[in-house]
């Protein structure tokens, strides 16, 4: 399982590079799908169907929205390609090495992969505790809507604000013509 996961993660990184280097924005938007659908596969392998449902539909819809936006504006990649200078490359290399060392040091103190430490949440998230806490058979819904309801209210407000922002920006362009 770990080998498949690593393969998918490498595929995602390669997909990100290819999407960056693609000639037109349209092919970049399509290539972004590699990342999203690999992530869906990872969620399914790690037995998180709740996330996989949301991820696969959001990936498809965001592709539609990206392509609509690109068709409305331009598919020309406006990146200016400057020649890489040596000092910047050295600084970037040093930063990457330091970051890797810090990650190695930090990840050593984490619990093993697939065995999260549930000191606080453990007693609430057992099949025996469900009927008296939330009564929901789906743990994810129980956590998202009951234990962490404030969080979900914040997410709903963020979505609402984002849509209002889109409307406010696009309405002004539309009215000029």
């Amino acid at each position, binding site marked *: 399982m770990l080998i498949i996961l690593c393969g998918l993660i490498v595929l995602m990184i390669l997909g990100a590079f290819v999407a960056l280097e693609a000639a037109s924005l349209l092919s970049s938007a399509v290539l972004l799908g590699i990342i999203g659908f690999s992530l869906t596969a990872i969620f399914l392998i790690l037995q998180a169907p709740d996330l*996989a*449902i949301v991820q696969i539909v959001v990936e498809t*819809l965001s592709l539609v929205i990206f392509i609509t936006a690109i068709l*409305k504006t331009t598919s020309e990649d406006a990146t200016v390609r400057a020649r890489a200078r040596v000092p910047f490359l050295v600084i970037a290399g040093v930063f990457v090495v330091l970051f890797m060392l810090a990650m190695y040091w930090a990840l050593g103190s984490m619990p093993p992969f697939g065995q999260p430490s549930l000191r606080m949440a453990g007693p609430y998230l057992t099949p025996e505790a469900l009927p008296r806490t939330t009564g929901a058979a*789906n743990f994810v819904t129980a956590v998202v809507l009951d234990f962490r309801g404030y969080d979900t*209210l914040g997410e709903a407000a963020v979505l609402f604000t984002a849509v209002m922002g889109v409307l406010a920006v*696009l309405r002004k362009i539309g009215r000029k*013509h």
Partner: protein
Amino acid sequence: MRGMTSIVKTVTRAFEGIIFLFGVYVVLHGHLTPGGGFGGGVVIGAAFVLHILANGSREAETDARKSRSALVESFGTFAFWTLAIVGLIGGTVYFYNFISKGTLFRLLSAGFLPLANIVIGAEVAGAIVLVFITLASLKIGGEK
């Protein structure tokens, strides 16, 4: 916004209802099976986006769809907040689960979680449709 060929329209007519129904199922069974308000709401929104993409949308229709989806989205946000407030007024604390929890694994169980799933699904579906139709009906430059 123009529609697509009659092949696409026929296939869409066959599938959009099933997609919509699956979204409703995911929302209603959010407290029992994987999914919930966010996932099911996006599926419902995708069914509407498919319909609009295949059949196109005339100017008057677009305006009506915009105001309807804005209404649904605002209703969802407001109703979710109202659910939280009702717990504060009728029960004890903010976000108190004030409805009886019922039997585990039944459709009508888990207190107000199914209600919260439904209103979040309405909000997400409205938001998706609203953003898509605003972008799709945007006119830039000399485009008619």
